[in-house]
């Protein structure tokens, strides 16, 4: 799980061009949206694409996405449970 969380932080930084962040700057329970990393709706779409591309997970329900993208902890747990690659 820790490897997955590290991989996720690296992917989030690269995919969302968060050039001023390092994986160490993102705590496992930091909020990804709102006051946390300050991601926006386009970032949310990029994360949906990332889940599909890297883990074969297709999200269709926006409400579900909102809950899954709460933090790296929540996201990693969801991926661990639902990944097909």
């Amino acid at each position, binding site marked *: 799980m820790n490897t997955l969380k590290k991989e996720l932080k690296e992917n989030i930084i690269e995919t*969302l*061009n*968060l*050039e001023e962040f390092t994986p160490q700057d993102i705590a496992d329970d930091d909020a990804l949206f709102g006051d946390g990393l300050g991601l926006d709706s*386009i970032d949310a779409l*990029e994360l949906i*694409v990332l889940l*599909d591309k890297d883990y074969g997970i297709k999200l269709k329900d926006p409400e579900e996405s909102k809950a899954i993208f709460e933090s790296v902890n929540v996201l990693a747990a969801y991926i661990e449970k639902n990944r097909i690659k």
Partner: protein
Amino acid sequence: MGKVILNGSVYFEADSETFEDFLKVFYKQENLKYPKFFKMDTLSKLAFLGSEMLLKNNARAPEANQHSALLFSNRSSSLETDRKHQKSIAEGAKRFPSPALFVYTLPNIGMGEVAIRHKMQTENAFFVFPEFNAVFLHEYSTAILKNKKCKEVLCSWVEVDKDKRHGFFYLVAGDGDMLHSTNIINELYTQRT
């Protein structure tokens, strides 16, 4: 070698491997603290940085920018980003188009970034011409100033395509120090390098 010229003098220059690297180095040098910069495409980054050079002037009243209109133009629209997006959707079953890339497949998005940053609710328009068009920029900015749609107009030619990467920005005010004429605009544009 990339170069920023402000009011006729070299303001910044750097040897960077790519134009994108140059823009990034300049952004950091200016200490602009706007993380969204890194998400922009090259055209928007150039539009953003060029605008900042004129709008961040400390001598300006903080609310001055909110009353400024934006009048931008170029030759290649957002073609470079359009090509990247086209490539990303043309890779068959493996395609994963990037929403963040798609957002920038319009040239006026860079102008929107400037408007958001400075809370502008004034007129903004982006025009595509075969070449730099001082006559149009002059007439359009004069008209919106006369009609009191704004107090200033930030005009620009901002071009990004293949080996053509440059921006030219100037601010027109109703009560500026320099004569606003097509000849002067053309003269400034020609002198920009």
